[in-house]
């Protein structure tokens, strides 16, 4: 099989990740922070080292601000559910994933939020004039920014966007950015950074991270309350980090796998990974670009996109194309709306969606070529 559904979850995972998960399950008797025996201490050390590693990877000066979650969805929920109050004004982009949009719609019903989806152009880029206009009317409490679209790979022009007023908090959904593009929260004015561990970071599913800037924890209500292994005499959730937002037994096998994924990226080099992924998308696009029946979505200037490519074949539904790719060519892609109806409305492909090819570090250049040839063949045959 040629696996081109890397934006859903990266595959295969590096051997180091598989080994780290297995070793944790095989060799670590105990739960982090839950006792003073050798196994529990070893577990605590592994969790601590993983936190330090992720913090360094995103340039966070204080690793206690790295909160482990079950994924980007939980990280986004934690911020939005925990911070927004009745009547708050929120900005989001017209490229949001349902991990943001559904939370906002739910809270709109429950708490009467004012949610503004800032319009984006057909390539998925935020229309800066519209954004500035909305900002002038009234700055929001939170601006949710989908940094890289899971539908088109569109990378938002971060540096042009961040002209925010002091009262606005910036929540960046980096689910499709992390591991593909360099991100440095020490250098960028990001208040909250949410990402998953199992996509660009090569970790196992069920891992994710929320980074939050200093001072923001006080007004952020935890999503969960429970045992932390600390302050056990008290019935009150601790206020210090990371315990305020992490309770219950941590997913240690997943988290050490995630840390091993970050090690792998550092060993290979993020820019080398980025270049390879971009080369795959470029080869694929080069071969299909001229075909009259194939429509390509997303940025025309691919420097402004990651290795996610959405297409449609004239006269065929996305699910039919994906079915043929799977059955006739053993190529795995994802058709439909990709949990992002807003993004598809923006690029003009709602409700049928697109066929999404997403490339990853472990894909070979020949696989990108074969995918292009398969798509051309389907377009010819119909």
């Amino acid at each position: 099989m040629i696996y081109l559904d890397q934006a859903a979850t990266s595959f295969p995972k590096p051997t180091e990740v598989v080994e780290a998960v297995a070793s944790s399950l095989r060799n670590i008797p105990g739960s982090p922070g839950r006792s003073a025996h050798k196994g529990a201490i070893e577990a605590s050390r592994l969790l601590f080292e993983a936190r330090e590693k992720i913090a360094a990877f995103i340039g966070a000066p204080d690793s206690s601000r790295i909160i482990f979650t079950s994924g980007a969805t939980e990280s986004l929920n934690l911020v939005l559910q925990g911070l927004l109050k009745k009547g708050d004004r929120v900005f989001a982009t017209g490229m949001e994933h349902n991990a943001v949009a559904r939370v906002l719609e739910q809270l709109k019903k429950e708490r009467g939020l004012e949610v503004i989806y800032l319009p984006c152009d057909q390539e998925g880029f935020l229309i800066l004039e519209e954004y500035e206009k909305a900002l002038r009317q009234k700055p929001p409490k939170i601006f949710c920014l989908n940094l890289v679209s899971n539908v088109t790979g569109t990378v938002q022009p971060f540096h042009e966007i961040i002209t925010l007023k002091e009262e606005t908090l910036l929540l960046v959904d980096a689910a499709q950015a992390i591991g593909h593009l360099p991100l440095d929260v020490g250098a960028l004015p990001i208040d909250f950074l949410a990402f998953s561990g199992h996509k660009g970071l090569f970790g196992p599913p069920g891992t994710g991270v929320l980074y939050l800037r200093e001072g923001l924890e006080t007004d952020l209500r935890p999503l969960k309350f429970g045992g932390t292994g600390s302050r056990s005499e008290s019935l009150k959730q601790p206020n210090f980090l990371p315990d305020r937002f992490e309770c219950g037994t941590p997913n240690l096998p997943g988290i050490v796998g995630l840390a091993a994924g970050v090690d792998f990226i550092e060993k290979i080099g993020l820019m080398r990974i980025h270049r390879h992924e971009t080369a795959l998308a470029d080869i694929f696009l080069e071969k299909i670009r001229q075909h009259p029946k194939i429509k390509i979505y997303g940025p025309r200037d691919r420097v402004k996109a990651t290795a996610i490519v959405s297409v449609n074949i004239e006269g065929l539904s996305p699910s039919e194309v994906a079915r043929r790719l799977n059955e006739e060519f053993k190529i795995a892609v994802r058709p439909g709306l990709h949990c992002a109806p807003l993004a598809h409305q923006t690029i003009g492909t709602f409700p049928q969606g697109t066929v999404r090819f997403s490339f990853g570090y472990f894909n070979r250049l020949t696989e990108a070529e074969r995918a292009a040839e398969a798509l051309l063949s389907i377009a010819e045959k119909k």
Partner: protein
Amino acid sequence: MKIICIFPSIHFVLKAEKHLKASGLQPDLVPVPKEISGDCGMALELEEKDLPQIKGLPPELKPEAIYLRTSKGFQKLLDS
């Protein structure tokens, strides 16, 4: 004599341990003595002469409390 440093959670114990090791000290990771707290957490044990370096830890890594381990029990030296 030995001193025992108490932190809010295992994260800060390990962070302080890393910091102190980097500055040449050799802290021991020990269970919090039951005379100090009924909690099941960990603490750092160091030599009394290390006290100035412990007090010089960055603010976010300062121990919540420091105890001197004496023959008669634990004597509190610092309370945050």
